[in-house]
């Protein structure tokens, strides 16, 4: 008898991991976060807010620890800490005595230090701290999946409703002021959405890598288009795709899932940087060569 793999057999490797609920949850959360982080990441990249995204991730540690001590929702504690951090950074930079990047540096390290001090008073929290630092997408509880879905909904709705304001103020702040947009509240609102996104991202890839979810797909998308709506769509698709590929890779070759997702994203970026139709290194090199002959 001749054994040829049928259509079903060929799909087996795709379907096999889906037998496990934890993998399905990881896939759902990874795809939701890929879309959310990709979309808001476009504004993070265009407005030069990568540092603030990274800082927000660190600064929510005390919120996580306090929530753990009180026995309430850890994600809830993280959201509150993230939003408070956003408000604090905005308040300090509004005094105009300290530049915003310095204010970010002060607030996030201070908050992170507070978290470490709190942890040192709590016994047996070290295992969870490693989840905080490196993420635990394969261990996501059903409840946290719904929280991630809610975060996705709020962030995408916020971006859609303030799309024009964010577009105008990111491109031309002077024109934004002239047409009566209030830049301070707008920036604070975006930072708050970013804090929400970061809390979601930490569940998947942890504090250390969450900036990658925000920055890498968006920067990759920018290499492929000159239009913001297309860039947002591409970044969301790339973020989502990297999550799926990374999770399957982590399943089959037994590697850390958070790292696999981010590494996939990074590899796609490198490929696009080299091979993008107009901005790619190869295309530009060819154009230069064509010019010199």
């Amino acid at each position, binding site marked *: 008898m001749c054994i040829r793999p049928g259509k079903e057999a060929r799909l087996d490797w795709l379907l096999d991991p889906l037998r496990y609920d934890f993998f399905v949850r990881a896939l759902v959360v990874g795809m939701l976060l890929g879309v959310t982080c990709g979309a808001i990441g476009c504004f993070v990249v*265009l407005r030069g807010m990568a540092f603030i995204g990274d800082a927000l991730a660190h600064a929510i540690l005390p919120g996580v620890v306090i929530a753990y001590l009180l026995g309430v929702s850890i994600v809830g504690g993280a959201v509150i800490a993230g939003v408070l951090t956003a408000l604090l950074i905005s308040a300090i930079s509004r005094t105009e005595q300290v530049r915003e990047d310095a204010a970010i540096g002060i607030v996030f390290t201070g908050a992170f230090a507070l978290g470490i001090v709190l942890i040192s008073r709590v016994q047996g929290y070290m295992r969870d701290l490693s989840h905080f630092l490196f993420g635990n997408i394969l261990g996501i509880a059903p409840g946290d999946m719904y929280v991630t879905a809610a975060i996705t909904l709020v962030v995408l709705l916020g971006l*859609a*409703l*303030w*799309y*024009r*304001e964010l*577009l*105008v103020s*990111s*491109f*031309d*702040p*002077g*024109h934004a*002021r*002239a*047409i*009566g*947009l209030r830049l301070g509240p707008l920036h604070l609102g975006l930072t708050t959405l970013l804090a929400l996104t970061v809390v979601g991202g930490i569940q998947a890839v942890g504090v250390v890598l969450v900036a990658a979810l925000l920055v890498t797909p968006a920067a990759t998308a*920018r290499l492929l*288009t*000159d*239009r*913001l709506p*297309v*860039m947002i769509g591409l970044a969301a698709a790339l973020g989502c795709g990297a999550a799926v590929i990374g999770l399957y890779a982590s399943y089959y070759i037994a590697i850390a899932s958070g790292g696999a997702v981010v590494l996939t994203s990074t590899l796609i970026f490198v490929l696009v940087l080299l091979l993008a139709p107009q901005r790619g290194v190869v295309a530009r090199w060819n154009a230069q060569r064509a010019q010199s002959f």
Partner: protein
Amino acid sequence: MGHGSQAEPTVTLEGVTVVYPGLTQPALSNVTLGLASGQRTALIGPNGSGKSTLLKALVGLVPLAQGCITLLGRAAAPGNPQVAYVPQRSDVDWRFPITAAGVALMGRDVHLRWPRWPSRADRALAAAALDLVDMGAYANRHIAALSGGQQQRVFLARALAQQAELLLLDEPFAGVDTATTALIFDLIDQRCAAGGTVVVATHDLATVSAHFDQVVLVRQQIIACGTPAEVLQPDLLAEAYGGPLALFHHPVAVHKHAALEPPELPLRHR
């Protein structure tokens, strides 16, 4: 959009004084001025004379230490759909993913209610504005892929797409070629013929008498205001620029070898 009566000024400034924080000398002092509908006004004066500040005050971007500005019965404030403003050098992110059409469409935002999603009609107005500045063929080009003069035209298109009564242009002729300069003058004439009011801050004194109805000579305060022939007088210009000024095309030229001075270079002293 024509306003009809010439008698009623569209814009009035009364005793306007602007002092920037940290400075003791006012940028503008006690400026009183009226701008009528259909009037083309040139703001002239040396660098740092307060021309840009005057335009920003009309937009409502700088707080007034004293005085008041009324535009069509409203106090000057940001977000007035009837005021379109093209700054001297737009402080924009040139790497931002946006096309010429996208920039022109931003002229519609001030008219739209939150969440300001533009309609098909808004897109059509933006496209028409690009055609007005001869940039229709470049609508889908990225903003950084355009030359300086083309970029200037796109920002002008954004202001035109706004369809405002009052059009404020800060140094629109700086660094643009003669074709663009001619096009900007044409558009100014069209706007004013349709009842709009246009104010242009410019260094190009040679073109002022041919293209403007009113000239305002400023140096912190108004040194002279009137028709080009009234204002472009050697003694008044000397008072503003701090020395006798040689001027090409001068209606009452007194110098035998009048020469066109490049606007930013030191003025000729004799």
